[in-house]
């Protein structure tokens, strides 16, 4: 009975579909028109707040624009990037401080994302196990993510304070160090301090993404592994890790893109110190503090190109589904 019912229904659908096809295409056309109508406001706003400012920034990077009078900008070609005058190279690409900022940013990004991935994996595995009070622990883990970056920078700035900070107090107490460390001021430690705070702040994000991937894993491979008596550590490396690898890759690249543009944490924790200056901090310092909009825009554009390159890699290797299906 049921099968015949389905057959009749599909037959009817086929027939009506045939007779209704001109009307349906009209309907489709109407829907496509409506879709564009609904998209227009969003597209206008995106063009206004993203497309236009980006285009203007790239344009400024080829000019000698100054913050006090942007209108007077003159086209000067590639001079902001690289130029050779009287036997000396000038421009962002010849600036040691810029390369120092690039190096800081890369070092910061790679180290903190690696640590976040490892810690996030551990936290996610713990949260994936069932134990009493799991939802409370998950809530606690979310707290660092919810705290504004500026607040975490200030909070940790106080905890890392060289004279009254609790971290020095603890480390002195257990005999790990003999004299207090100047975490945010000393050239050797400042970047470590920034990484420490960033890892604390973003590990929850990583852990949640990994947890979501863990919860989608099929249970049958684990049963098979248990029946065969395979050690849990081996199961983790041979089963779990390969299965969550795609999700892990996407999360890592997502975080990496975020880390490359770091600004607020560094700006507040160590201000304009050369030891921690990131590409974003460098660009803003040129743009706002030194009012050199042209030069700063060149640095911004280089940062944009770096991130764009990584985005392309993300899209290619992350296998993002754009078609919406």
């Amino acid at each position, binding site marked *: 009975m049921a099968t015949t019912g389905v057959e009749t229904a599909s037959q009817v659908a086929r027939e009506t579909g045939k007779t209704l096809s001109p009307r349906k295409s009209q309907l489709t056309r109407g829907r496509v028109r*409506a*879709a564009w109508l*609904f*998209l227009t*406001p*969003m*597209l206008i*706003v*995106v063009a*206004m*707040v*993203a497309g236009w*400012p*980006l285009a*203007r*920034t790239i344009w*400024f990077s080829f000019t000698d624009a100054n913050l006090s009078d*942007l209108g007077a900008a003159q086209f000067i070609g590639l001079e902001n990037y690289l130029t050779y005058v009287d036997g000396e190279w000038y421009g962002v690409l010849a600036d040691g401080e810029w390369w120092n900022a690039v190096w800081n940013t890369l070092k910061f990004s790679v180290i903190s994302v690696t640590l976040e991935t490892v810690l996030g994996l551990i936290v996610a595995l*713990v949260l994936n196990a069932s*134990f009493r*009070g799991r939802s409370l*622990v*998950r809530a*606690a*883990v979310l*707290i*660092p993510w*919810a705290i504004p*970056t*500026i*607040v975490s920078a*200030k*909070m*940790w700035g*106080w*905890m890392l304070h060289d004279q*009254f900070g*609790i971290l020095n*107090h603890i480390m002195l107490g257990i005999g790990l160090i003999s004299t207090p460390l100047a975490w945010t001021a000393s050239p050797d430690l400042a970047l470590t301090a920034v990484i420490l705070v960033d890892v*604390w702040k973003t590990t929850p*994000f990583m852990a*949640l993404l990994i947890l*979501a991937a863990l919860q989608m894993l099929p249970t049958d491979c684990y049963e098979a592994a248990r029946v065969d008596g395979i050690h849990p550590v081996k199961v983790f490396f041979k089963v779990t890790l390969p299965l969550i690898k795609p999700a892990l890759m996407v999360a890592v690249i997502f975080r990496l893109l975020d880390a490359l543009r770091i*600004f*607020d944490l560094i700006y507040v924790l160590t201000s304009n110190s050369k030891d921690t200056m990131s*590409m*974003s901090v460098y*660009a*803003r310092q040129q*743009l706002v503090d030194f009012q050199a909009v042209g030069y*700063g825009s060149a640095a*911004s554009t280089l*940062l*944009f190109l770096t*991130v*764009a390159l990584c985005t392309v890699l993300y899209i290619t290797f992350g296998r*993002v*589904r*754009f078609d*919406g299906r």
Partner: protein
Amino acid sequence: MKRLFSQLGFYLLVAAIVLYAVFPFYYAIVTSFKTGPELFSVDYFPLSWNWGNYVSVFREQSFAHNILNSVLVSFAVVAVSLFLGVTAAFALGRVQFRGRGLLLLTVLGVSMFPQVAVLSGMFELIRGLNLYNNLLGLVISYLIFTLPFTVWVLTTFMRDLPKELEEAAIMDGASPWDIIVKVFMPLMWPALVTTGLLAFIAAWNEFLFALTFTLTNEQRTVPVAIALISGASQYELPWGNIMAASVIVTLPVVALVLIFQRRIVSGLTAGAVKG
């Protein structure tokens, strides 16, 4: 016995994770109740409930004004992003048309923009619109990161809604606008709450634009105000005040996150992993 040890080890690990996550904020709360010389000794528990820092934050600075600014800007950003996001998500999630893939790609690309990359162009735009040192300027500039994200997440939610509802509505002669408002909106509430919350947090926490596009303390948002709290000299930061201000702005966000934690987790994963 071995089982007991591994159990114990596991719970120790759980305790370490919780301590690591919660302690810094807890310590900020403890510090916020200390004044004067008390600040210079390390204490793990509050010695007294001294509200002095909380009072002085509001008395010495225009902190109440800063909070109002942050609230106004964040709500406006959320409202505009959600309105534009829902209509765009309907088009991108429910209608098949040429160029849709490219549009989604553009939206994703914009969400990856480093804010600094548009800073000088945005500065010119804000000044051109005469919105420098104006909250409206912040609302406009914040759309660059809230809008792509809202569109992206709402599109993933929208395309998973059942097709039959929409077909039934079309049969009844409903226009696309009716379909959005009367059919999808009631179903979209959870998604709207999630994306709205994430956009709110992003706007509430934003620093670079707020720092660059405002000039006077009356127009500043809370993160900038906290970052710029200064004492008598550069080396004498009023840590008690800073911690009190930090606790004030963080508590509402933490409360929101704890109340809506499931929704936030699903929104974050929809934005990143599913994307």
